[in-house]
């Protein structure tokens, strides 16, 4: 392979962007949601690094809610994506109902552990 040039990097980004533009909008909404959850988790970790971990259970509860939300959204995205051969026969409503139930359990746990 030849030297990697900035032109190759630009070509790479360009192709990624155009491929991503082709994804269905429902998946893009899920991606946005995951990004929001991870961003919130990062903010909390930075805050704990500054202030210290005094109510450690509250910190864990907050971070867990963000990460758990992100994980459940990713699972929804996998199950709903039409290009996934594994979940071809799973109706997307089924996937969404699972998503809602798991989130309810997650938030119940969070509220208890928040202290």
């Amino acid at each position, binding site marked *: 392979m030849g030297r990697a040039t900035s032109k190759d990097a630009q070509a790479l980004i360009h192709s990624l962007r155009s491929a991503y533009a082709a994804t269905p909008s429902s998946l893009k909404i899920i991606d946005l949601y995951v990004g929001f959850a991870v961003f919130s988790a990062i903010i909390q970790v930075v805050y704990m690094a500054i202030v210290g971990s005094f109510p450690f259970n509250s910190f864990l509860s907050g971070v867990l*809610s963000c990460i758990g939300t992100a994980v459940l959204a990713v699972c929804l995205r996998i199950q709903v994506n039409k290009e996934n051969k594994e979940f071809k026969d799973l109706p997307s409503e089924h996937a969404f109902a699972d998503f809602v139930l798991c989130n309810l359990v997650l938030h119940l746990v969070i509220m208890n552990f928040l202290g």
Partner: protein
Amino acid sequence: MGRNYFTILKVLSVTLLPILSLSFSTDSPTDRRLLVLLDDLSLKSSHSIFFNSLKSRGFDLDFKLADDPKLALQRYGQYLYDGLILFSPSIERFGGALDLADVLDFVDSGHDLIIATDSSSSDLIKSVATECGVDFDEDPSALVIDHKSYAVAETEGDHTLIAADDFIESDVLLGKKKIEAPVLFKGIAHSLNAANTLVLKVLSASPLAYSANPNSKLSSPPSLTGSSISLVSVVQARNNARIMITGSLDMFSNRFLRSSVQKAGSSRKYDKSGNEQFVTELSKWVFHVRGHLKAVNLRHNKAGETDEPAMYRIKDDLVFSVEIYEWSGKSWEPYVANDVQVQLYMMSPYVLKTLSNDKKGLYHTSFKVPDVYGVFQFKVEYHRLGYTSLSLSKQIPVRPFRHNEYERFITAAFPYYGASFTMMAGFFLFSFVYLYHK
């Protein structure tokens, strides 16, 4: 009330317990009976000033010869006397039912003892003293000799009559008034057992004293020399029995009590030796007129409440109080000191506070229970020279927070609360958007 208690106790002790001592009973501390054992009854008159001072303080003295065949300290398991004075240096064997073990049991049960011996001391008296923590010189002909601190007499003596003024510094033992004149001493030396922590030197010999036979030339350096020679020692046992031991029976005699004294090398002549003040004050201490403390009413409660809880919670505020009194010979007076401390103890003290007193005997303080849970003890340990030791403890458990006693809505955790709630809101909004977008 005191007499009633006495008779009930007598009946109980005969029927129930083998030896119930009435040593220094806090309910009937006056009218105490002393057994005085003498070598010969002329001591009654030659030491009459000392004995009369004891009688005037309310003691009943029972004079007996040390080899009296009817001698007994206890009958039917109950002690007949509250204190023992051994003024019988040359007795080889006690008469009657008394022996060394009996005397030691007497002291072990909390009774007081005064031992005075002199150059005719027998091995029996020396072994009583050894058991109490004091070792007399083994040489039977040795006396304390001091060529610098002897008492000046008309005839040129052999410097065995000592004028001693090296007293221990203690108001409790020797009284508030300083003893100005030196104390006349003529007798044998003893030293303290170095391993014993309960024995104190009240009057020590000067650094130039030594213990040897005055009539013969010294063949080798004497074994007891200098300030390690104690002339008068006291022992305060852990059960608060008090023992006074001295090697000079003449120190108590009328002759020494009334005599004038002039220490060699000093021009000051005292009309009266310090003996009377010394033996009177020290015998007051031995028989518990000074320095006998009692602590009652150890109480603790939560700040703001009055009853004692069975358990505390961590980080509670509590108030602790105890009352300490000192026996003054006639009544219990409030004890005033500023160094009594209380500990909250579980394997090691978590809290150590000095109690403040209100000058009427009540000591109190307040502090916060530490952040550790477990079974603690309130401990008051008070050991001071010349005073009875106080060792009080009261057990108290401390529990952690109940699940509804923790802090809620901690300010530092608001970002985490915020994050959790925004996640919930976000989930709600997302599900709407996901389901109804075009």
